């Protein structure tokens, strides 16, 4: 049982990091990035290709992250421009549909060019005993990455000027504009950052399970569920929801069967929407 819960926490930290990227972009600009999982897969495949070309991991990872960040930057500067000109529901709908299109394009291109490519990062080392359970080193390093990224985000949003500017835009775009913050700059930066975070998730996850070309939609949906349960726009909510859902899904997979986990995740999201529409830690009006 302890082992199952610990596995759930390892998965949950990955889910949390996955949800954070999605939740930030939605909180800022109202764009629900339906290509978030595909961003992660794209990053993973770039890294996998570089590893195939016998680059070292220390070169491949930064290059992969920069690549996916640039893709995010490019999409924000081109496709998202007309979206931000709209207001309210229309903006949400157009943003969502455009990103669905982008996700489909990435999926199609990757499946066309590299149908059997996959990224799995093996980290050598003996299993480490935690609470009497020996944990594989890969999962621990992956969790470490997620934790460090989460802590970095926390510090960034709490103490840096740009981070505080970002939070102010999430709270009130007009108000932030009146304080001299340019929402467009903040949005573009955070969109690119979110893409990098997606790439980071891919790396952390590749240490426990291979990232395959066709896994994008699945990752996107997991990110959506995490973001909704945690509260759209809330960083700490995403991590909390990630850990909660990670534990719930590993426990249910262990006792019932893996096919049931996504149904339980769906049910969790549905219950959250019905009883607490703003999510666990959401604070939207």
């Amino acid at each position, binding site marked *: 049982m302890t082992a199952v819960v610990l596995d759930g926490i390892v998965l949950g930290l990955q889910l949390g990091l996955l949800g954070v990227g999605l939740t930030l972009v939605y909180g800022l600009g109202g764009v629900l990035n339906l290509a978030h999982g595909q961003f992660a897969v794209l990053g993973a495949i770039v890294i996998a290709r570089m590893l195939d070309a016998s680059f070292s991991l220390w070169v491949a990872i930064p290059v992969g992250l920069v690549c996916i960040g640039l893709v995010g930057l490019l999409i924000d500067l081109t496709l998202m421009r007309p979206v931000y000109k709209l207001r309210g529901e229309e903006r949400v709908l157009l943003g*969502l549909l455009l990103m669905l299109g982008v*996700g489909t394009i990435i*999926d199609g291109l990757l499946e066309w060019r590299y149908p059997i490519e996959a990224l799995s990062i093996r980290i050598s080392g003996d299993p480490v005993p935690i609470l009497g359970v020996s944990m594989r080193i890969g999962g621990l390093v992956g969790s470490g990455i997620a934790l460090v990224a989460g802590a970095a985000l926390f510090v960034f949003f709490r103490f840096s000027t740009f981070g505080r500017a970002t939070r102010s835009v999430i709270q009130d775009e007009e108000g932030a504009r009146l304080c001299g913050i340019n929402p467009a700059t903040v949005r573009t930066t955070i969109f690119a950052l979110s893409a990098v975070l997606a790439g980071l998730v891919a790396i952390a996850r590749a240490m426990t399970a291979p990232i395959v070309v066709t896994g994008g939609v699945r990752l996107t949906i997991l990110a*959506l569920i995490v973001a909704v349960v945690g509260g*759209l726009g809330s960083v700490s909510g995403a991590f909390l929801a990630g850990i909660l859902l990670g534990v719930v899904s590993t426990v249910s997979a262990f006792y019932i069967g893996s*096919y049931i986990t996504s149904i339980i995740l*769906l049910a969790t999201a549905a219950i959250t*929407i019905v009883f607490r529409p703003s999510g666990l830690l959401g604070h939207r009006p």
Partner: protein
Amino acid sequence: MTAPGQTSRPVGARSPSWQAPSLLRGYAPIGAVALLLALVPIFFQNSPSRMTVIIVGMLFAAYAISFNIIFGSTGQLFLCTGALAGIGGFSSAILSERGVPMLVSIPLGGLLAALVGGLLSWVAVRRSLDTIFTGVVTLAFSLSYDNLVLGRKDLTGGETGLRVGAGSDTILTDQVKPYYVFLALVVAYLVLYRAIQRSHLGWAFRALRDDEVAAELAGVNVARYRVYAGLIGSGMLGIAGALFAHHRGFIGPTTYAFGDVDVRVLVMLTFGGVGSLLGPVLGAIVFTILDEILVGFNQLRIVLYGVTIVALFLGFRRGVIPTLETARSKKRRTPAASTKSAED
């Protein structure tokens, strides 16, 4: 403002004497399309592979009309078109396997899909007036459906799929006869769509699509009508999916997969025109032909669909049919305006 009692009148029925022509005007396009499509097998009946493609095209037209009721009429972005059709298909196939006659199992499949779709709609619209939750809930449902099909191997056959025997030696086997069955389905769906448009449901749908808050203030129960649309559209998807399962004789996890069904239906509907009567049919025809032309470039077709989504929503959100209609009514208005100025 119109009084509540008047709102239940059909569209265009200004007085009883106008009833017949407006009825004719309302349903004539459907008759014309049905007649044109009925001629298709004459040209292709000797090519079984072509007929297979055409039947799938008709199936997608039926999907797109159903999706149009949900998305076009009430603005709910259901990202589980394939999953709902799959619910109908699999449940109907499984029931038939257990001895339930096809004519009972197909409606039952539709009913199950309707219940699931209505439930999803209810969850998504219950609290807020937000499209975002519909997208999230239905996408998560797509994933659950996928895992269920792959996980419950005892019922669905898992990866290998399920053989559906009930449709063999009936009207659904062969090529030409099932084409007419699917054509009948498409025509029935079009008639239903028009009938809904002309009923009080249609009034409510238009009101809430144009301005949700105003509709709510005018006494339209927005959440309830959204759930109605979810119920009806999902039921239609389920029936279409079930019919296809019995026609094809084999269904697997990819028959109703998200990437194969949802994205295509969205593209077809948007291209033809969201919220228009014949838009879904036009979209299905155009993209079925395009698919056939690009049949050699397997994965690139998916890329093409993605590019089309982006392009359509950026530059051509209205679709072909609404654009044509505006152009025609403009043309009609111009001579009218000129005669008026001449009179002056």
